[in-house]
Every structure is written in structure tokens, then in C-alpha cells.
């Protein structure tokens, strides 16, 4: 097995004491930052990006592998112990996880999440190691025209995620693409959208964009709506599981892995749909369906495993095609690019040490995660009690630090604030962040491929049409026209499963106060601004 030999060599790279230390530090920092409320995995990676600047590429990526898994696990800890999920991928975990925690089973919920993440992460990373080289081999044959088509698909797919508003997704994509346009055009050297500002000529540093949209935007947005009442954190002891918990968890772990990996690996989607699917599957297959809604362990085990497996699956398109499917992967891609390395089909040939070192360190990160998180869970739970004033002050502090350190330029700080303001606006009006960040990162790459394709064809537009790209454009058309096509699909087909999931999710949102459906009816044109809401007796 070729892949396995390379993987062993990768372990040789990753298992040096120094790199092992970086993996360890990565997991520790990733979990610690990720567990803080309001900080999702993407923000964790963005905030910690500057820390890896002083390292060589391989060590930096190994640290990132730790941060990646650590940040994700931290996120699910938060959603289990607090009553509201921080980011979309852990919405589903929060449904049953928080109910378990309230029923005094927080330790079991955290344990099944940790062990499930480990099992799923390990299997999925193994799949990644086996699949990625072949995908890369295939991808070498992929022409620039095909690449362009696949990127168009990625753009459309991230804007049309289940249950969200397409117009707003497209708006976010447009904003991201616009930011990506700023700077000198690589082919002709002309300045685009720089308005004569010298600092904009090289384009906006992706670190600044990512930190601005995720960290500054989030901090400002949360500050404007800060929950002033103390939030209730459920105390937790050492995570442990009984034999029956294991009995109920191991199948959901495996099923979650099977659902998550392929969903992560196709260049579209993200972690929302697979975690929904896993939840619904477990609800259907459970021997204790009556527990669902009251804290069923299957409902934590399945989605958590799915989440991790899809994260590992997401590395397949990222490493082999250079196409990220989640916000976290997008930020990781930016990190890799900042070292002058272009992820893509050639990566496995050009940088074998780096790639296999990274994959090996995913295994290591995963193991470290399990070893750390079982004993440290009570400590993480304490982190949730950090005063909010310090938390968000700290986010702004470290954002500024990271953005300034990237180029040692004050201009970047003002830019950071401007992009933070954009992030604020997007959060306020329900424009999703993911399409924007994908647009910023993939936009320039897509343009380059398009122009390459047209150069090859000597300017003939027919050069964009290949068998593969036709198939991909076909899928794009189906996604775009789905609202129309749906009318012709029998009602009780597949979507009913999704509808049920969506219904469950909505209910969970309502319980946690995420959805503001309460104020819907009184919305149009009335002026009840000052009328005290019956739901909040004292006002604020």
C-alpha cells in the first residue's frame, strides 16, 4: 500500500519531539480558545494564525491540525454545557447534549462526544489518507476549465445551504468576491479597486479578512446584544460512560462517520446537512426513541462523530483541489497559502513530507485530544464562566495583535475595523459569513483558472466546455433551480426526512432563544419599539 508507506513516513515527520510538542500545544490552545463562548472553530484558527508565523511550514501545519480538532471539540463542549450552540455544526449536538447536561448527565454527554470524535476522526483521517492520493492523481488530469466549474459549484453550494436565504447567501458571496478583487491583477498588473491606496495594492491580507469577519465582527455584534443576565453553566465532573452508554453510542459513532466523511469530501455543503441527517437517522433507528428530546445519548454520539468525520473529509477537497468547504477549512487554506504553497493536485507530489506530516499529525492531534479532554473537562467548564467583558475585550485585543503583527502596518488595523463593521452588518441582517470567506479565498483562484482555461483555448469560450465541466454545471443548474424543480418531486420522498430535521432544529432554536420568532407577527410597519416585551418583564 503506497499510501500507508507514505503515512508511516508522515509519522516519522510528525513524531519528532519538537513537532509532537506543537501538536500538543495546538490541541491545548485550540480547545481552550474554542471552548470559550462565542468563539467557533473558524475564529479559533483565525485568531491563532499569527502564532504560527514564526514556525516552519511543517511545524505550523502540524500545530494547525491540533488547533483544528481542538477548536471543534471545544465548540461542542460549549454547546453541551451552555444552553445555546455557538455555530451551525454544533446546533444539532446542542439539542440532545444540553438536555442530557440538564438531566445531570453532562459527564456522559461530554464523554460520548469526546470518544465519538476520536473514533470518527481516526477512521475519517484513515479514509483521508487512503482516498486523497487517488483524488489528487485524478485531479492532475483536471483542466483549468474543469477547476473553474468546480469552483462555481462550490460558490453556489455554500450559498444554498439547507434552510437559509439564497439571496442573502449570494449577497455575502458577492461581498467576499469583491474583497478578493482588491489589489493588483496578477495577469496584467493593473490595480483594481485600490483607489490609489498603496497598502491595498497587494490585496487585503487574508488574516485581516478572516479575523475581521469572524473575530471583530462577532465581538462587536455580541457587544451590541450582550446577554446581561448570568448564563447558567452546568457543572461537570470527569467525563465517564457506563457500559450501557457505550452500548448505545458505538453504532451512532460509526454511522456518524459513514455519513460525515462523504459529505465533507464533496466540494460543497459543510457540516450542517450531515449532522442533521445523522440526528434524524439516530432518532429513527434508536431503540429508545422516547428519549429523544429528553437527552438521548445517541443524539449526541451520532452528530458529534458526523461533525468530526466531515471535518476530516473536508480536508480531501482542500488538500487535493485547494477548495475549502467550511469556514475553518477556508482559514486553514489561507494559512497554507501564506507560506507560498498552493494546495492542489500537485501538492502530494511536490510537498509529500508536508502533506503526510499533516495527515499523520491529524491522528496525533486526535489522540492528544482524547487524552487531554477527558481529564480536563472540568477545567474547560470553568472557562465558560470567564467574565464576558474580559472575553470580548480579549478577542479585540488578540485580533488587533494578530492583524498588526502580520504586516506591521497601522493601516491593517483600520481595515480590520472596517471589515469588522462589515461582519457586524452581515450578522445583523442574516447574511451568512461562510460564502463571504469562501469568496475572498477562492475568488482570485477561480479567476486565475478561468483565464488560464481561456488562454489555452486561445480566447475561445468553447474552451470552458469539457465533459466534466458540463456535468458540474448541470449540478449547479439543479441547485439553482431547485426551488422550481421541487414542485415536480413527489412530496413524501427524501425531503420529508430533512423537513423533520429542520423542524427539530427549529424547535431547539426556539427553546434556546436563538430564533426570534416571538416578535414576528408584530413586525410589519408597526411601532412597538418601546412597548415592553411580555417575554422580558424588567426589560434590560
Amino acid at each position, binding site marked *: 500500500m503506497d499510501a500507508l508507506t507514505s503515512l508511516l513516513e508522515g509519522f516519522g515527520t510528525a513524531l519528532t519531539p519538537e513537532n509532537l510538542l506543537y501538536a500538543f500545544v495546538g490541541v491545548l490552545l485550540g480547545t481552550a480558545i474554542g471552548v470559550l*463562548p462565542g468563539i467557533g472553530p473558524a475564529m479559533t484558527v483565525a485568531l491563532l494564525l*499569527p502564532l504560527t508565523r514564526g514556525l516552519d511550514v511543517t511545524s505550523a501545519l502540524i500545530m494547525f491540525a491540533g488547533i483544528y480538532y481542538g477548536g471543534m471539540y471545544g465548540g461542542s463542549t460549549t454547546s453541551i454545557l451552555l444552553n*445555546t*450552540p455557538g455555530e451551525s455544526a454544533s*446546533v444539532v449536538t446542542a439539542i440532545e447534549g444540553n438536555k442530557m447536561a440538564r438531566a445531570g448527565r453532562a459527564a456522559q454527554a461530554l464523554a460520548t462526544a469526546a470518544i465519538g470524535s476520536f473514533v470518527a476522526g481516526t477512521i475519517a483521517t484513515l479514509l483521508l489518507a487512503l482516498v486523497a492520493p487517488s483524488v489528487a492523481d485524478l485531479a492532475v488530469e483536471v483542466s483549468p476549465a474543469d477547476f473553474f466549474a468546480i469552483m462555481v459549484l462550490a460558490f453556489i453550494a455554500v450559498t444554498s445551504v439547507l434552510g437559509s*436565504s*439564497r*439571496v442573502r447567501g*449570494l*449577497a455575502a458571496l*458577492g*461581498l467576499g*468576491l*469583491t474583497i478578493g*478583487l482588491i489589489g493588483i491583477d496578477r495577469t*496584467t498588473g*493593473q490595480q*483594481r*479597486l485600490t*483607489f490609489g491606496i498603496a497598502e491595498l495594492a497587494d490585496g487585503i491580507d487574508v488574516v485581516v479578512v478572516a479575523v475581521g469577519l469572524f473575530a471583530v465582527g462577532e*465581538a462587536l*455584534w455580541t*457587544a*451590541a*446584544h450582550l*446577554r446581561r443576565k448570568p*448564563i447558567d453553566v452546568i457543572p461537570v465532573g470527569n467525563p465517564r460512560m457506563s457500559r450501557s452508554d457505550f452500548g448505545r453510542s458505538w453504532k451512532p459513532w460509526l454511522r456518524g462517520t459513514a455519513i460525515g466523511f462523504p459529505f465533507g469530501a464533496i466540494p460543497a455543503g459543510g457540516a450542517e446537512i450531515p449532522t442533521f441527517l445523522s440526528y434524524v437517522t439516530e432518532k429513527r433507528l434508536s431503540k429508545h426513541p422516547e428519549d429523544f428530546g429528553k437527552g438521548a445519548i445517541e443524539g449526541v454520539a451520532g452528530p458529534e462523530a458526523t461533525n468530526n468525520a466531515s471535518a476530516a473529509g473536508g480536508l480531501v477537497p482542500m488538500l487535493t483541489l485547494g477548495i475549502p468547504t467550511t469556514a475553518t477549512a477556508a482559514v486553514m487554506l489561507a494559512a497554507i497559502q501564506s507560506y507560498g504553497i498552493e494546495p492542489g493536485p500537485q501538492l502530494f507530489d511536490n510537498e509529500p513530507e508536508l502533506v503526510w506530516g499533516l495527515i499523520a499529525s491529524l491522528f496525533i492531534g486526535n489522540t492528544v485530544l482524547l487524552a487531554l479532554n477527558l481529564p480536563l473537562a472540568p477545567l474547560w467548564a470553568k472557562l465558560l464562566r470567564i*467574565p*464576558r*467583558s474580559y472575553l*470580548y*475585550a480579549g478577542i*479585540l*485585543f488578540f485580533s488587533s*495583535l494578530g492583524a498588526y*503583527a502580520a504586516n*506591521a502596518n*497601522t493601516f491593517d488595523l*483600520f481595515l480590520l*475595523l472596517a471589515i469588522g463593521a462589515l461582519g*457586524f*452588518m452581515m*450578522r*445583523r*441582517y*442574516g*447574511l*451568512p459569513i461562510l460564502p463571504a470567506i469562501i469568496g475572498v479565498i477562492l475568488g482570485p483562484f477561480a479567476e486565475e483558472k478561468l*483565464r488560464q482555461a481561456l*488562454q489555452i483555448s*486561445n*480566447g475561445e469560450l468553447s474552451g470552458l466546455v469539457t465533459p466534466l465541466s458540463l456535468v458540474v454545471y448541470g449540478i449547479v443548474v439543479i441547485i439553482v433551480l431547485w426551488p422550481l424543480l421541487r414542485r415536480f418531486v413527489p412530496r413524501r420522498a427524501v425531503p420529508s426526512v430533512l423537513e423533520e430535521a429542520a423542524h427539530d432544529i427549529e424547535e431547539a432554536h426556539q427553546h434556546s*432563544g436563538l430564533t*426570534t420568532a416571538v416578535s*414576528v407577527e408584530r*413586525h410589519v410597519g408597526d411601532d412597538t*419599539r418601546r412597548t415592553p*416585551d411580555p417575554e422580558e418583564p424588567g*426589560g*434590560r
Partner: protein
Amino acid sequence: MSSAAPGGTREQGRSEYGVALFLGALGILVIAQALLLPESRIARGPVGPATIPIVVGGLLVVVSVFLALDVFRGGRGEPEGGEDVELTGSSDWRTVLMLAAAFVANALLIEPLGWPFSGAILFWGSAFALGSRHYVRDAVIALILSFGSWYLFAFGLDVILPVGILKGIL
């Protein structure tokens, strides 16, 4: 996390149109800038440096029209929720402005004063804006963070952050 379902806070009435307007204006700006690009002799074929900006600008304009239509039909963007977010009640602009002020103060002072002080001002000011009233404790934490991060970057990462007035001391 957002859905097209009517929702949103009460404060969001007509300001949704503002978003559409912003997108439309941005789109027109992008297109105009692209059209003003000088002819390039290097570019070949139908896709030059201006093509993609025109497409992206066009996308923004089209989206702005559809967004306005959506708002007209009663669609509202759903504000993003989160662990610490409470969406009842209106935006607390005072906090946001104070945070922005602390942020700008750091940007203006980082070079003259140096990061150890400007960063501390940023942290202290943000904590104050967010309602912390432990002035001394906040200041101590702020200084520990800013000096600590200065040393971490200097010795751990070989990045020398501005020293400002502490030149020769740090």
C-alpha cells in the same frame, strides 16, 4: 443559521432596504472602476482584468434588486444568534461605539506609545465598554496581557511589536 422566514428584531424595519442599497451601490462602484481600467495590451481573449469585476459587480446589483424584492414581500434577514447574544431588545450602540473608540485608540497609539501601552488601553477600554467596573484589576490584567504578548512575540516568534516610549527599556 439564517433563514428567509420573516423574523428579526423590531428595529430592523426599513434598514433592510439599506443593505440592498449598499450592495447595489457597491456593485455599481465595482463595475465603474472596472470600466475605467486602462486598456491592457497583455490581456488576450474575452476575459481581461475588467471582466470578472464586471461580473461580480453585476452579481451585486442583481442581488440587491432581489433582496429589495424579498424585503418588500416581508422577508427579513435573521440576526445571528450565539451563546452570549440576546436578540430581544434593540442594539446597544453605546457599547459598540465605545469599543470602536478603544479599537481606534490602539490603532492611533500603537506606533507612538508602543504596543505594551496601546494594547493595554485597548483591553482596558473594551472591558470598560462592556460594563466591567473593576478599574484597577482590569488595568493589571491589561498590562499583563500586553507586556506578556510583546515578550511572547519577541522571543517566541521573532516579531518585534512597536516599543514606542519604552524604546531602550524593552
